[in-house]
């Protein structure tokens, strides 16, 4: 590779220093560029949507195929909304991985140093990241929830029962599932900020979602029932269910509020560590 024999003096000036200091909106623009210019974003978001819709179609299609051989009680217990939304549990893994990567990849690749050289105040950087990634996650999550619901219901042709958005509880279940996915991926962002390492943070995330429930099942029944309701996975389960609240669980909105608390706590701890540790 050869370089033109130009001196830096030859370049036309094009930078002027604006007044004041960099703002959160500047950082958000930068974070948006970071997010959209790496392949892992497109991969994880693509997997979220495809898996959500695909597994929903599979689950509802399966039900439709066996409808004629299902017993009456089974038919009555069948909840078309829930069956079309349950597959979204797979989506949280893909979105969670992206939530972790959004910050852990910066530390893994050294980009964090470039980022903090450009914007040395670290809390605003994390806030900008949270807002930008949170909005993207919310849009993709809600889109996935609604698309999964519609595709699932379209698969459930007569004589199988299907739901519409005006079916009692259905709209809450669909929007709630999307919200659950967005908030759990912010929790993953918080874990990534605390742990910094991609593999470690993803393991912790999967541990909280999948391993923690198994550990709690080993506890004595009474303790188990008290603890289970606090699990993110349990909160998600309630979300996908349009028909009331199962035993040993918070109802939908208080559950979501608790989940927001988890995400906020992880992000605050992450923010404190971000400021106190060397980049």
């Amino acid at each position, binding site marked *: 590779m050869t370089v033109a024999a130009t001196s830096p003096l030859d370049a036309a000036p094009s*930078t002027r220093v*604006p007044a004041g200091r*960099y703002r959160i909106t500047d950082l958000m623009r930068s974070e948006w560029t970071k997010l959209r210019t790496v*392949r892992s974003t497109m991969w994880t978001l693509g997997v979220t949507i495809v898996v959500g819709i695909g597994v929903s179609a599979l689950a509802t299609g399966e039900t439709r195929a066996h409808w004629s051989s299902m017993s009456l009680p089974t038919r009555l217990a069948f909840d078309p909304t829930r069956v079309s939304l349950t597959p979204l549990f797979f989506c949280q893994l893909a979105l969670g991985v992206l939530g972790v990567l959004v910050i852990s990849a910066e530390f893994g690749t050294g980009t964090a140093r470039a980022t903090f050289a450009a914007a040395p105040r670290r809390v605003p950087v994390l806030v900008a990241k949270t807002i930008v990634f949170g909005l993207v996650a919310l849009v993709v999550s809600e889109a996935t929830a609604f698309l999964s619901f519609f595709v699932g219901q379209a698969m459930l042709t007569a004589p199988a029962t299907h739901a519409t958005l005006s079916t009692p509880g259905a709209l809450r279940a669909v929007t709630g599932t999307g919200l659950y996915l967005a908030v759990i991926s912010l929790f993953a962002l918080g874990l990534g900020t605390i742990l910094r390492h991609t593999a470690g943070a993803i393991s912790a995330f999967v541990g909280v979602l999948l391993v923690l429930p198994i550990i709690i099942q080993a506890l004595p029944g009474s303790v188990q029932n008290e603890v289970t309701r606090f699990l993110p996975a349990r909160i998600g389960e309630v979300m996908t269910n349009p028909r009331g609240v199962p035993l040993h669980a918070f109802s939908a909105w208080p559950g979501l509020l608790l989940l927001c608390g988890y995400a906020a706590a992880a992000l605050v701890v992450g923010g404190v560590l971000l400021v106190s540790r*060397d980049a």
Partner: protein
Amino acid sequence: MLWFGDRRPPHRPNPEGTTMIEARSLSKRYKDKLAVDNLTFQVRPGVVTGFLGPNGAGKSTTMRMIMGLDAPTSGDVTVDGRHYHDLGWPLHEVGALLEAKAIHPGRSARAHLLMLAESNRIPRRRVDEVLELVGLTSVAGRRAGKFSLGMGQRLGIAGALLGDPGVLLFDEPVNGLDPDGIRWVRNLLKGLAREGRTVFVSSHLMSEMALTADEVIIIGRGRLIAQRPVGDLLDQSAQRFVRVRTPQPDILVAALDGAGATVGREDDGSLTVRGMDATAIGDLAARVQAVLHELSPQSASLEEAYMELTEESIEYHGAQPMVAAAAGGNR
């Protein structure tokens, strides 16, 4: 000032007596290792200041502390009188090449520069300008992970120039560059300094600094060894001597000894004379009627001067454990 155009430069060049980067008793301790030890130095605008020391001497750590990336354990460092943290538009004031490939391998060169530019409200066209400047225009859309070490360095330099800053830090900028690229970096550094900017560049190679730097700050094991102009470094070196060949060494050695010079006899029969310059030796030889076959002043290379200085620092460390312990106790 073509480069600055119609805007006010972030730092009005004022080479006389101004200090742009100032470290005061800067120290950094990592768990069990004191990486930077009570470092005090100043970096002026308008010249290239070399930051020299063996690998592991604490150069990169010091640069990261200037940039606010690592927090000092004690002491303080400021840029233009302010902490890095308090800069309003950091990229407009300080540009840095901290380490090659501090770049997401999946992101293109242009995207990397764009995300940096946006954070400091630098217009998009400036990204293309700096890409052109470092010769990466043709590969701007390629993923940085595919870049060679040299291309990575160029991208880092492009990032440093992005905000047209008055202060520039370069950590080992010629690493991985081909001879063409090395010459280009040297000219770039000198050109930036000529424009009145502050240029602070680290290297573990004295030979490189001899060609680029006007002034050097030498550190060893985290401690300041010397801060002085490159020329002075040679003058003060004990390695300066005059080589003399004569068929009558005994007469000349006696005369030189009498005149207060230090004389060493080499295996090849030549004499190395210290403490007297060639003119005085020639005059003395004429007076005692010694025939001279060679009379050549030898100046030590900067490399030798550097080795000499860093060796001193190692001896100093070995001899002063009690002092170091006492200083640590005060912290």
